[in-house]
């Protein structure tokens, strides 16, 4: 089959690799019909996530048709499914608490140890990501092996719901929703969201659905800010505006009740320490850049809530721990417990309460994936979301 493989920093290529097979009894093989490039794929592309190996098939946002099932899969051939990027067994202590992204059983034992050394606990398996999270082949390919196919995949019965409407159930829609849930939005809240990328936009949309009075989205890409505006959010361009001052003034001088960092480890920013962090990241001594996070902590009101859906991989320097403590901020974060949210969000999509298609800027054949990565990285304003269609003529 054809698949997008990692070759090195900013070097990905569509190669011919062996087709996947049923390996374990609960597996299914999915023929991919749509698969998106995620902002966190760019972290892999930029080489800032550890333990990515040449030949790894990337991609963790995908859906398709079931073409093969293991003896213990509950799926049937021909079913259309969206597959959560988090691989979860459904039976362990953590899955029992619906903390699916903490699943104890989806990351192979030898790979668990890498993340255990780095983080103190082993991570769950994720598709198309680092070997810290299992090194599972991803879905930017014609076919993918899906373990625990009886737990994760969401069957889309209604063929009237086309791929573009439901694909983002795999990651960014539940990620945005959980980000808002982690921010404990209450009606009347003023909420600030850093990053008008897909997760930030879905977080803003979710916060509005949850009853926030004002949602303010911070970014510097005009087109992305326009998308935020289209959702009913207000916007702040950090290149033109003093963000903290603006947020204070837009929240009666209190500061936002809840802040959401949907930027993560590759934040843009002009402060001296962010420039230093950029330099360190470039020479590979690896501090996560966290300028959005630092700004969010200073901006949030006393006793406010901080939610971090943005991806971080390692350490960060000069974290404003004093502000976090002295202001009494509640912090919640984590990889998304996708399986917890998919049914609820699918119902909201089917009822027309949530639209996700506004986000898609480009639909490309799989063969154009490498070019897609480069454009997504270098032209973030125009390329808000790329969906690869393996069936599409190149």
């Amino acid at each position, binding site marked *: 089959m054809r698949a997008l493989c990692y070759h090195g920093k900013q070097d990905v290529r569509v190669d011919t690799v*062996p*087709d*996947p*097979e*049923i*390996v*374990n*009894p*609960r597996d299914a093989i999915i023929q991919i019909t749509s698969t998106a490039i995620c902002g966190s794929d760019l972290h892999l592309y930029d080489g800032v996530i550890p333990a990515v190996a040449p030949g790894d098939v990337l991609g963790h946002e995908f859906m398709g048709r079931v073409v093969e099932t293991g003896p*213990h899969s509950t799926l049937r051939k021909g079913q259309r499914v969206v597959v959560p990027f988090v691989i979860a*067994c*459904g*039976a*362990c*202590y953590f899955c*029992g608490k619906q903390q699916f992204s903490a699943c*104890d*059983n*989806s*990351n*192979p*034992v*030898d*790979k*668990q*140890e890498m993340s255990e050394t780095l983080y103190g606990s082993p991570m769950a*398996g994720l598709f198309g990501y680092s070997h810290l999270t*299992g*090194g*599972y*082949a991803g879905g930017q390919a014609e076919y993918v*092996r899906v*373990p*625990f196919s009886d737990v994760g995949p969401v069957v889309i019965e209604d063929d009237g719901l086309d791929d573009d409407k439901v694909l983002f159930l795999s990651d960014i829609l539940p990620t945005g929703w959980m980000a808002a849930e982690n921010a404990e939005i209450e009606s009347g809240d003023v909420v600030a969201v850093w990053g008008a990328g897909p997760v930030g936009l879905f977080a803003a949309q979710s916060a509005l659905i949850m009853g926030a009075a004002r949602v303010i989205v911070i970014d510097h890409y005009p087109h992305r800010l326009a998308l935020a505006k289209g959702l009913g959010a207000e916007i702040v361009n950090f290149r033109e505006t003093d963000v903290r001052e603006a947020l204070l003034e837009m929240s009666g001088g209190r500061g936002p009740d809840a802040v959401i960092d949907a930027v993560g480890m590759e934040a843009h920013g002009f402060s001296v320490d962010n420039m230093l962090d950029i330099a360190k990241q470039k020479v590979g001594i690896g501090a996560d850049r966290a300028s959005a996070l630092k700004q969010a902590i200073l901006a949030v009101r006393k006793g406010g809530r901080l939610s971090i859906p943005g991806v971080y991989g390692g350490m960060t320097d000069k974290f404003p721990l004093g502000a976090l403590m002295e202001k009494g901020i509640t912090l919640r974060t984590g990889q998304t417990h996708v399986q917890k949210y998919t049914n609820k969000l699918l119902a909201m999509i089917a009822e027309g309460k949530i639209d996700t298609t506004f986000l898609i800027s480009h639909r490309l054949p799989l063969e154009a994936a490498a070019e897609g990565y480069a454009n997504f990285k270098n032209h973030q304003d125009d390329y808000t979301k790329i969906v690869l269609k393996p069936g599409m003529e190149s």
Partner: protein
Amino acid sequence: MQRKTLSAAGGAAALLAIGGGLLLARSSRPHGAADDAPGRTARRSRFGDYAVVGKTVTIMKPSRDELFAFWRDFTNLPAFMDNLDMVELLGDDRSRWTIRAPGGGTVSVETRIAEEKPGRIIAWRSVEGSDIDTEGRVRFSDAPGGGTEVELVIAYIPPFGRAGQAVAKLLQREPAIQARRDLRRFRMLMETGEIATSERRLETEEKA
């Protein structure tokens, strides 16, 4: 060779107590331990000639009795113990374990059950004349929040002493690493019916 048995070393109970606080009450822990942590988590890992390793996992299903029963049938152990090639039952409480050794060969260990409390404890010990001087114990107890805590403690004399232990660690066949991985595979097998792998194809898995 004068084989120093565990009884000669003060008895299996005492040794495993060092390893896991299993039999002896905490107050009677040797060496004047100052906290409530299991002895095997001490910064030193050797007690006399013996290295002691141990790990605990929480398993949500099946029941404690079923987990015990699966483990008690030692022929099931190779399904999740990576370095265990084969187990032959020799009688009610005796079995022969063929273990893959660091460096490629195998060693054979005849064990007998040293202690059995149905649903709770299985302990085994190598008999005299085995290639390795070892004993192990698995304990099943109810986790406070539901499920079963499974604790595996292994005491052994490292072949070729400390140097051998270092080589084994390098080859990831060291018992501390094995114990952790074996217990996690046991949990995977019990909870999910399979052992996670990110291989894309069957044959590559067989090669590995």
